[in-house]
């Protein structure tokens, strides 16, 4: 064999993901994460405090609109904590999805000038959002402890599954995000659909605003939709563990994990196929 370092050819094997190269560029991933953080809050007075304020505001709105006026507050659980739990986990998923979905379009300037493993961008997005999620989770934990000490909330053994839930959300978000990012290099329509779609998904995913029961009783024809939704078991399990509401099933979480793995694999293959020539079509 030749001792050439690498070879540039037209058709790459779509399953050759070059993860080794990605590992060589790990410093770049870390620097991207740092850049996202530093750049986001430069020239703001409150800085990272916005991490806390964002979910608190949303939760307050949900608590007032859906809980107080809409009469959708759950039984036996503090309304604020119930919504906060759903929101921070959902936000992590939707941030991963939304931000990775514009990987090619947002970075076309950079991608058009210099080569590096393109997958490092979505990966850094998932990591920097994980840190954001971590900070928001600390907020959740403080409020949770407050309610726990007042004996208004208890936890469950399924709390141990928490890290797995976060990983599923991250990988599912990234997987679907990179699929969309690859398709938007040619068909920009998807970006508009996505904005609308992600909002719709938030409303139809049981456990974030509406509970599974209320969806099934009001729209029985859409029961199947709630059943195949891979996000639902994750959020349900999260709440089951932390605030002891709803139910838990291994099958549900298993299906979520399975869909996540498949989505991620498809995403990486499509992304890998797209990255070589997307500059010509974007």
């Amino acid at each position, binding site marked *: 064999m*030749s*001792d*050439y*370092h*690498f*070879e*540039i*050819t*037209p058709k*790459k094997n779509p399953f050759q993901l070059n993860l080794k190269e990605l590992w*060589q*560029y790990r*410093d*770049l991933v*870390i*620097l*991207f994460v*740092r*850049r996202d953080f*530093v*750049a986001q809050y*430069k*020239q703001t007075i409150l800085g990272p405090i916005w991490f806390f304020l964002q979910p608190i505001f949303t939760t307050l709105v949900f608590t007032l609109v859906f809980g107080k006026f809409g009469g959708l507050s759950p039984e036996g659980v503090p309304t604020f904590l119930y919504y906060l739990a759903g929101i921070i986990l959902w936000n992590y998923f939707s941030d991963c999805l939304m931000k990775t979905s514009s990987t090619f379009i947002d970075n076309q*300037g*950079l*991608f*058009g*000038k*210099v*080569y*590096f493993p393109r997958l490092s961008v979505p990966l850094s997005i998932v990591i920097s959002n994980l840190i954001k999620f971590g900070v928001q989770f600390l907020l959740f934990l403080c409020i949770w402890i407050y309610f726990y000490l007042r004996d208004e909330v208890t936890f469950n053994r399924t709390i141990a599954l928490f890290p797995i839930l976060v990983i599923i959300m991250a990988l599912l978000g990234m997987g679907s995000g990179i699929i969309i990012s690859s398709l938007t290099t*040619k*068909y*920009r329509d998807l970006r508009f659909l996505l904005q609308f779609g992600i909002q719709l998904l938030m409303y139809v995913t049981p456990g974030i605003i509406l509970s599974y029961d209320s969806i099934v009783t009001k729209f029985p024809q859409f029961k199947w939709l709630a059943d195949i939704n891979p996000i639902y078991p994750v959020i349900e399990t999260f709440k089951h563990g932390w605030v002891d509401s709803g139910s838990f099933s291994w099958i549900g979480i298993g299906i979520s994990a399975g869909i996540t793995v498949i989505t991620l694999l498809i995403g990486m293959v499509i992304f890998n196929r797209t990255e*070589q*020539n997307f*500059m*010509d*079509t974007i």
Partner: protein
Amino acid sequence: MSSDKDIAIRVENLSKMYRLGAIGTGTLSHDLNVYWHKLRGKGNPYARVGEENNRELLGDSDYVWALRDINFEVKKGEILGIIGKNGAGKSTLLKILSRITGPTDGSIKVNGRMASLLEVGTGFHPELTGRENIYLNGAIMGMTKREITSKLEEIVDFSGCARYIDTPVKRYSSGMTVRLGFAVAAFLEPEILIVDEVLAVGDAEFQKKAIGKMQEVSKGEGRTVLFVSHNMGAMKTLCTSGILMTNGKIQATGNITEIIEEYQNFNQIDSFNQEQRNIIGSSHFSSWELVPNRDSKNSNKVEIIFNYKAFVITKNIELGLVIRDSTGNIIYGCNSRDNGGDYINLNPGEHKFTFIFSFPVKGDLYELDIAIVSENKVIDQWVPSSKLLIKDTFNSVLAERWKGVLRSELQFTYSSNV
């Protein structure tokens, strides 16, 4: 072919097809068609109809070969200049080499760590400070954090931005940004460096520094450089060999001086053929030609014929000819009435004006500017896009920079009283 060990880059049968026009309308149907052909084991149905890459010709096909069957090798330590007109495929080639886009066909084998300077300062984030951007930029180019830290001082020194290193880059001037970007790239220590017109920005001092660094990179440390520029001066001083590209193909490879000469020759003939002005109904210059020199004794004599079409009777005519060098300085000027010539009268029809004069100047492409005037009114003024090519006939042993503009044969004698 030389042994693989000495080769930095080997390009084999490289082709790249582009789709013209707005991508979007009809893309889906084309995509489905391509997919359908692939499914049946047939080739891309649009590949057959791809046309030669020539931006001046109007083609029928939506598909164009930006590069077609490119083959060449770059040896280790070689500085290769890539020359060609706009749209000849130079940048596409560099883009494929630096893995920004993929080829349609063929392959490139690269032996060594490669970095490209398609545009310096890529990935600079305006909100981050100079120092933060050095790290980010370095990492984008493939350096590890540790490597960057070990070279940070040198990079800052080389850029000359030490004072502003903790200021956000958005407050930098464009020149400073380029300096910083180039500094990072210069300390990358890649085995192969790809440079595209970066030297256009930055002041003279910095350009000198940059060229020096590139020379040092390739000579001192045995690294390979691929250089694309329209600056023939920089090419000549920097490169060892060259490639001339036309319409997506390689026209010539070889020594850089020969390649530059061929390019300038070719450029002249090429544009000469295309010089067609259609000013219907009014009198105008239609073409010009250089009469081959018959006077071998006086090789500095130039004979130029301008062809002129007159549609009306014009009286009291005089002609003015001005010649500029490639930097725009007027080198020579003359009038048809010089040396006691008189005004002329023209009838409708085709006319030839012949100018013979001595032109002992350095080799360059000279711009002609001809005007025809009747009773102080300009009838036509023409600056042909084809240039007058003068080759150096007189060679002095003097270094290039002392040679000046005039090329006049020297008769030197020596006598002494001792």
